């Protein structure tokens, strides 16, 4: 048991830092650190830079282009990337569908899709939830009916993140209504350019277009794009959700946002003194920092144990999801609260990197503009990826056997 970083680990951190210093474009990091609106190009450009370094998918096995880094190295990488203001690597391709394709896909699927994920060619999105199937995901109704060498897909998916940019969608579809509802689901990879697919924006309460509905009308999908066996998709779906939950701990990003919260609290004044000198507010910052310190170690404990057993994250990942999302929400709430009056203005352009501020407002209003929106936006974190209540069901039923 040793929580200190070894000399090798410290050297590794320096290597990551040097890379970020040299290769992370300031035009991108400025947006991330300022909480500004990101474009598709920002994400793709960063993925290509990482890939050129050989770090496009650090958690993948080496034979697929991964790094072979251990859990601690991956943690250091995440932490340094977040701290430097690197964009989050979106999980849909790298951390969701890719592990499923590796574990259950055909050799030709692996050969075709995985290189295009790691090099940033394909943008993936998720087709899981439906209007009538949220927490009860296995009740999903989107139908795929076999017609020769194709499935014909009809139905509607929702809460589809950034699908407006996507080249591919991975979908859970119903291929059978026999038996238990979990037993009639298949896992399809669908080209978003296929005729019959319509993407409709859903505007979130922060005013942003981050999620969509995706409609399927007689969409023909080659049978070759089914992962694994027909009607076994639920097994793959659960495997995928286990991977989704570990990333959701978001320790590196939360450390960055905690730092930002402290900066705001030092800059803002209350009664002529820095807000951080207000004990009531400072104690709330301290409280979220405690939660984050604990989560950082819990996260390392969980992923180290998993690394040793060489297995996918288990139900313990639910603990990370619950605490990680709660911490992210606390941080966005405190950042908003730290602004006082300037939590109120809604300035749509304020999320644009180029917004210069307003001559009638104080200078910091330009930095403050996105923060209330983040608070509203981040209410999603305890809902997505299996709501926190579902996570507690998983803990009580799968870990505790209740």
């Amino acid at each position, binding site marked *: 048991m040793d*929580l200190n970083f070894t000399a090798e680990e410290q050297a590794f951190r320096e290597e990551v830092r040097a890379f970020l210093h040299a290769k992370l474009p300031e035009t991108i990091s400025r947006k991330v650190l300022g909480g500004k609106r990101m474009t598709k190009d920002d994400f793709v450009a960063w993925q290509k830079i990482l890939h050129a370094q050989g770090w496009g998918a650090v958690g993948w096995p080496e034979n697929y282009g991964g790094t072979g880094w251990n859990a601690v190295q991956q943690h250091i990488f995440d932490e340094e990337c977040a701290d430097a203001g690197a964009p989050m690597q979106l999980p849909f391709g790298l951390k969701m569908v890719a592990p499923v394709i590796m574990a259950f896909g055909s050799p030709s699927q692996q050969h075709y899709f995985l290189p295009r994920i790691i090099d940033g060619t394909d943008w993936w999105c998720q087709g899981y939830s439906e209007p009538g199937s949220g927490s009860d995901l296995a009740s999903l109704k989107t139908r795929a009916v076999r017609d020769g060498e194709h499935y014909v897909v009809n139905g509607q998916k929702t809460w589809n993140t950034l699908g407006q940019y996507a080249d591919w969608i991975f979908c859970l579809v119903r291929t059978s209504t026999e038996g238990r509802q979990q037993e009639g689901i298949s896992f399809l990879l669908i080209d978003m350019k296929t005729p019959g697919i319509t993407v409709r924006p859903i505007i979130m309460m922060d005013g942003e277009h981050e999620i969509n509905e995706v409609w399927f009308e007689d969409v023909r999908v080659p049978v070759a794009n089914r992962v694994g066996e027909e009607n076994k998709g639920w097994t793959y779906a659960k495997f995928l959700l286990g991977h989704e939950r570990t990333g959701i701990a978001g320790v590196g990003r939360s450390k960055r946002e905690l730092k930002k919260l402290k900066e705001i609290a030092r800059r803002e004044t209350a009664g002529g003194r820095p807000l951080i*000198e207000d*004990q009531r507010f400072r104690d709330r*910052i301290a409280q979220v920092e*405690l939660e984050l*310190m*604990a*989560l*950082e170690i819990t996260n390392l404990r969980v992923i180290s144990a998993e690394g040793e057993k060489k297995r996918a994250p288990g139900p313990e990942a639910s603990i990370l999801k619950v605490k990680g999302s709660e911490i992210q929400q606390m941080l966005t709430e405190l950042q908003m609260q730290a602004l006082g009056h300037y939590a109120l203005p809604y300035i749509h352009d304020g999320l644009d990197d180029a917004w210069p501020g307003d001559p009638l407002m104080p200078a910091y209003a330009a930095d403050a503009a996105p923060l209330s929106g983040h608070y509203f936006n981040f209410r999603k974190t305890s809902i997505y990826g299996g709501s926190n209540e579902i996570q507690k069901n998983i803990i009580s039923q799968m870990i*505790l056997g209740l």
Partner: protein
Amino acid sequence: MNFNYTEEQLALQDTLRRFIAKDYAFEHRRALAKSADGFDRAAWKTFADFGLLALPFPEDFGGLNGSAVDSMLVMEMLGRGLALEPYVPTVVLCGGLIRDAGSAAQKEDLLPAIAGGELMLALAHHEAGGRYALDRVAATATAAGNGWKLDGAKAVVLGAPAAGKLIVSARDSNGISLFLVDAKTPGLALRAYPTQDGARAADIVLNKVQVGAEALIGPAGGGLAIVERAIDYANAALCAEAVGIMSALNEITLEYLKTRKQFGVPIGKFQALQHRMADMVIATEQARSMATLAAVRADSTDAAERSRAVAAAKAYVMQSARLVGQQAVQLHGGMGVVDELNVGHYFKRLTMIAMTFGDADYQLGRFSDTLLAA
């Protein structure tokens, strides 16, 4: 960075687990709490045989040179066993203090005696009205003859009734100094009592207690930093003890949820209770992470780093302990509040750990104040 226990550590854990199951069962412990000593002298001898009493001391003084992580492991098991023996006052607190600040002669004199189980110690530092602040010392030390004369009063000195020697803090012209005082010295009066969790403590009055020059521990006026380090070290140990108790409470409560039936089903089938149990498990895992942090940093000689980590851990572990303890009682229904079930005893010990050397609010304040410096 690694999170594994060594083979030796796992073996020690296993030994203690078996000892508790066989020789320290709950009914035995319950009887001990009501006995004159309030603990088991035979168990203390066994602890000596196991090496627990020598664990944190250097090999030169009969110790095993164990790390704070070793101590964490022991404390966790002592927590599970609800051990009443004055391990924290004697070995962790005073033993740690002598190890870190004692002279060679004092170490030679005291550490082997502690390790062998012949000597118990208690730290007489806190005073009424000072709450948890460590610099609130009103007791005085005045130069007298070749040494000092001590006067004052000390509050709730844990383990004092069984202690052969006390470490007493007192203020002299240099500041706060520490003195080793034989418990039988004339002028030293104890008002002994049991504590809520079945341990023993005493209020102490010092009336012209004469000590010699050799009684001084560390430099004259240098006592505060020594006590701060020792209390941090003890708080790290208490965090580990609390985690052991929380783990035990979770196991006991989970078993109860699976066996207790109402409305024709085990009560663990009800989602309201499932989620509460999940909250207890989450809190315990997070607390374990923080107790680990405290254990690792408690060995640090960087005072700022050490005290920041321990304050954070004590605050967080005690918040978690409150949740786990209260919910364990609640989920046991009426059985949760009776003396005959171990749940209430675990809850009381958890609560008293929080009230020892700074509760969650006090520690959160200490941690919070470090944000001003950063």
